[in-house]
């Protein structure tokens, strides 16, 4: 567990922090290259995360691909086996399903089966709340957390986005890096310059508190922090744990917090059923039962495809108000 989010005056958006991490690593290491749909040229990707990279590093290191996720993630498998460090952009996390075999059957199993390491990163812009409908709003992280051999990262702040992406690129294993796209331009924060690394597998206490713990990640961190401020007005002191890495899970930081507060709410944007929160809740139930003063509670999306229309999408997703209500219920138990 570490809490340092960097100091100093410079602030970047979440998107700028990711772009900076790519540039830092491409500058440092010739083995690092970027590939994906529309990432190259002067266009720089659907969200403009890779804008300027092709001009700076050339088309050889910033490759446009056809619409063929199974093929280009598979290609990254071969590149990585030969010692390159491809960073693959899947344009929307929703489309990662078309590359499923290349990820879960080949990349995830390979080192266990015969020892060939696959050091790639897949950047997957995920999450909703921005009125993008069922196929541009998904949070498919649970599929990959359930897959042995992968690492799964989901940063919530600009500093973590930079530090975890650099760590992911330097990791010798396949890492899926879920970017929370609602945060791209809406969140700004201090980001250390140069080679800033945040270790994979290390949760962060985003807010200290003594009455109740909210465990979350990605965009819901910001909802949880907003809820905590409202709850503080009524004297409810909320601790917020930002998991940052979903696989391997930093169970110790979660258990330590629960041992101090005795009450815990697990929150994520992904649908609740068999989501990452289910594993977190199970670990707490197994290993922190003696400290609990209330049932472990989860808040997630409804078990439905993600709807488009604002009232429907808002009904689907957790938010600060829903978190606040759930915490009040927990505290009153």
């Amino acid at each position, binding site marked *: 567990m570490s809490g340092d989010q960097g100091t100093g005056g410079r602030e970047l958006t979440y998107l700028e922090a990711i772009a900076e991490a790519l540039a830092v690593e491409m500058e440092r290491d010739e083995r690092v290259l970027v590939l994906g749909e529309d990432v190259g040229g002067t266009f720089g990707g659907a969200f403009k995360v890779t804008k300027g990279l092709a001009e700076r590093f050339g088309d050889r290191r910033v490759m446009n691909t056809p619409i063929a996720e199974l093929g280009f993630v*598979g290609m990254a498998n*071969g*590149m990585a086996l030969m010692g390159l460090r491809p960073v693959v952009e899947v344009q929307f996390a929703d489309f990662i399903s078309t590359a499923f*075999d290349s990820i879960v059957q080949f990349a995830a199993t390979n080192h266990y089966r015969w020892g060939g390491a696959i050091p790639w990163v897949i950047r997957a812009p995920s999450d909703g709340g921005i009125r993008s409908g069922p196929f541009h709003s998904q949070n498919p992280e649970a599929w990959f957390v359930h897959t042995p051999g992968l690492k799964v990262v989901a940063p919530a702040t600009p500093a973590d986005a930079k530090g975890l992406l650099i760590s992911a690129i330097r990791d010798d294993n396949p890492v899926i890096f879920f970017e929370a796209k609602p945060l791209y331009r809406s969140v700004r924060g201090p980001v250390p310059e140069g080679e800033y690394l945040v270790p994979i597998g290390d949760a962060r206490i985003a807010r200290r508190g003594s009455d109740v713990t909210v465990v979350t990640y990605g965009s819901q961190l910001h909802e949880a922090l907003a809820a905590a401020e409202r709850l503080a007005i009524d004297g409810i002191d909320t601790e917020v744990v930002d998991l940052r890495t979903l696989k391997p899970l930093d169970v110790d930081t979660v258990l330590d917090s629960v041992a101090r507060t005795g009450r815990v709410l697990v929150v994520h944007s992904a649908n609740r059923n068999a989501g990452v929160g289910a594993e977190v809740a199970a670990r707490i139930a197994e290993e922190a039962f003696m400290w609990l003063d209330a049932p472990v509670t989860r808040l997630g999306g409804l078990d439905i495809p993600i709807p488009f229309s604002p009232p429907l999408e808002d009904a689907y997703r957790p938010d600060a108000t829903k978190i606040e209500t759930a915490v009040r219920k927990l505290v009153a138990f």
Partner: protein
Amino acid sequence: MDADLRISLHAWMVLTRTFDDAMVSMWKQGRGLGGTFSQRGHEAISVGAGMALGPDDVVAPMHRDLGTYLLRGMSPERIFSNLLGKATGPSRGRDANLHGMGDLDLGIIGYVSHIPQALPTTLGVAMAFRYRGERRVAMTFVGDGGTCSGGFHETLNMAALYRAPFVLVIENNQYAYSTPLHQQMAVSDLAARAASYGVAAERVDGNDVEAVYRAVSAAVERARNGEGPSAIEAVTMRMLGHAIHDGAEYVPAELLEEWAAKDPIERHRNVLLEDGVVDTVDLEKMHEVAQQRITEAIAEAEKAPYPDPATVTEGVYA
């Protein structure tokens, strides 16, 4: 073609067939483990194509390419160890039969069941060579069945687009498990499928080891010279079932008879004898050497240890 090379091609086919015959009888006697895949009918392809590669090239063989594994230097003991789930196999008991037999020191990428995963992976290997400006080639194999899968089309499109040093050998063995070619696709020319993406493609007799060698060598040469990818459709017949449990009663007997008359090893043997490259004494000796090699390999693999269950979680991460 150089006489030594012709003899060598024959010797590797004999070793492959000897391995296969021994493996099939072991499994029929109940001395095997799980399933396995006979190589009968595919020897000219896996040996002819494997021989076309240079020492620094990389190949991702599939489950009917035993000859390529042997040619790359994977010993029969290691392969039998893998088949028997022993700690001494290349997958250390992690992966079954001819899967997971990767060894980067030998330039071999291990196989996965999900067809055609080897194709995009091999394209990535080729792209890594191109990225670093190395004059190396990446080769892989696919069956007729695999040409129906999306990854085949995605890979060939990208291979042509990027002019990758990539060679694909399509082993058209007439059947995808029990489904004959005409029930898999409305076309019969698999090389044309590759050509439609801008990949140089040709069809060869997959039971003629020298023809396979020549075609794949030309493809490897083109790839090495930066002239882009190729696909070679090698036409053959799967002479036994899909896997050891499969009696393949669905294959018409006359079709098997027709192809038995074109057996790749028998044919090559006759050509070598006619051309005076070898005599029957040389050939007998070749078979004896192969038989001894395989008998020793089986004995060694059978007495090798199983993996220690205490190591079961080792190696998930690098």
